[in-house]
């Protein structure tokens, strides 16, 4: 039986930290891209041997034209207008990531570092507040992936692909959601924080093993960059689901806390109760 009921889904701390997190991740990504622009090459190991970059964003300029490119494992891809060379009112300008993707928009390594480190603290403290509170109230375990959930992932994929009629979901979150959130919590977030910290010379003094666990300081820098796109990828998936699964309902839930549930999941109907008795 399909019913509709408003349920209080997201507590106050979750809603508050969610929006702080949304702003924080945006700033961290954009200021991070500006920091990358100061040396748009990635390497593996402890050091940066110029000839050994596995990824470079650059520009080839002659008198007539400017061509932007991304070179990855020796393969060059023309990215003029987006990466390497950006069209501005003053003509083509050499820039790894374009101004509309960076904070600040103009080239300022010092400025971008200020933004990045402030928001890195905010990201960490905000995340700690979220985890501490939701752990205390028992909310966290609702979407932590369990071995039982892992077995249901294929069924959930089949359901989304319309190869299966009923969802294997139990509780508020389905196995795929749990997998996505859990990997952000236990893989993405700790690794992006640690790889960021591994770039700090003073923290490397405090913890000599820190850059080593990533394979060296330059590897840590590369991993940090790749993981940032992991967050972006997650966010795109997240936004896609929010929009397709009921934009209004989802937005209301994350602003007011109240979510309209369309179907009663595993709710025992009066008829079934009668039969059992």
């Amino acid at each position, binding site marked *: 039986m399909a019913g509709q009921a408003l349920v209080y889904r997201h507590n106050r701390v979750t809603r508050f930290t969610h929006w702080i997190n949304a702003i924080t991740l945006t700033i961290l990504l954009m200021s991070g891209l500006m920091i990358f622009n100061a040396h748009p090459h990635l390497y593996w190991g*402890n050091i940066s041997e110029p000839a050994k970059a596995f990824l470079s964003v650059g520009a080839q300029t002659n008198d007539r034209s400017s061509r932007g490119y991304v070179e990855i494992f020796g393969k060059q891809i023309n990215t003029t207008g987006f990466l390497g060379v950006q069209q501005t009112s003053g003509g083509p300008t050499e820039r790894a990531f374009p101004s509309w993707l960076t904070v600040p928009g103009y080239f300022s390594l010092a400025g971008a570092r200020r933004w990045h*480190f402030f928001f890195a603290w905010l990201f960490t403290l905000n995340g700690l507040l979220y985890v501490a509170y939701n752990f205390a109230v028992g909310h966290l375990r609702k979407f932590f992936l369990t071995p039982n959930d892992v077995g249901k992932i294929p069924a959930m994929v089949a359901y989304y692909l319309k190869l299966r009629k009923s969802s294997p979901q139990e509780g508020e979150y389905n196995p795929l959601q749990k997998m996505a959130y859990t990997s952000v919590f236990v893989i993405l977030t700790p690794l992006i924080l640690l790889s960021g910290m591994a770039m700090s010379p003073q923290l490397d003094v405090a913890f*000599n093993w820190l850059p*080593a666990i990533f394979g060296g300081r330059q590897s840590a820098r590369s991993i940090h960059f790749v993981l940032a796109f992991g967050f972006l990828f997650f966010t795109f998936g997240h936004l896609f689901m929010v929009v397709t699964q009921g934009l209004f309902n989802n937005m209301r839930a994350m602003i007011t806390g109240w979510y309209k549930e369309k179907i009663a999941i595993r709710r025992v109907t009066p008829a079934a109760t009668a039969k059992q008795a």
Partner: protein
Amino acid sequence: MSLFDGNISRRHLLLGSLQGAGLLWLTGCEKLFNSLSGNETFRAVLESAEKGNRRVQRLLAGRNKLAQEFTEKDISSSFRSNGNPPPITMEYASEANRQFANWRLEVSGLVTRPASFSLDDLKTMPSRTQITRHDCVEGWSAIGKWKGVRLEEIVRNVKPTADAEYVIFRCMDTDSDGANYYESIDLVDALHPQTILAYELNDQPLPVANGAPLRLRVENQLGYKHAKYIRALEFVSSFEKIADGKGGYWEDQGYEWYAGI
């Protein structure tokens, strides 16, 4: 009903207006970020993180823990030089030709025994050799083998007074406007076991490109703290009255004084 229902033209209209709105949004954001970046109050808020970084990181690192030291085989094929070009004065050029025989390191300021050292004086003092990783604020890293005199030796020699808090490094290189490079570290970093005034790189006299005759190595901080072409040290209680008052050439241009991150 899903977002993607409807006929082709409706879809185009929708996508077109989304694109337009997106562009507007992005230009708006860029303007906002830029004006916030230039706002003094907002900048002060962002800068508040620097204090936190310094306190927390120093607490974690302590005063005597060492930066990782590497082996000969880890050394970079060429040690990149960055920043200003070498000093262009005739005096510097002729000194470089004479292996800096007449160059002297002047040490002054809040010290009980001001002193001056020749390069040979420094070389006869106890030395430290270390193979360490150099991290530039831009993002690159290089490993080199440095030999030099521990800054603590100099400190012990000149005996700073009780109110001395920072060491200023006066350098011979200038930028295109003629402004001299300078840097500062506090006595906590000055007394770190790996903080040395290096006169050798990879078993050779320090090359001109890397700061001959003498440069600072302060291994727990980024490259811009490692002053090159040093001519004098000055012990001070505050750097507020020096140049633009931020404690260094790059600091005066907006970079953090604490460069451990």
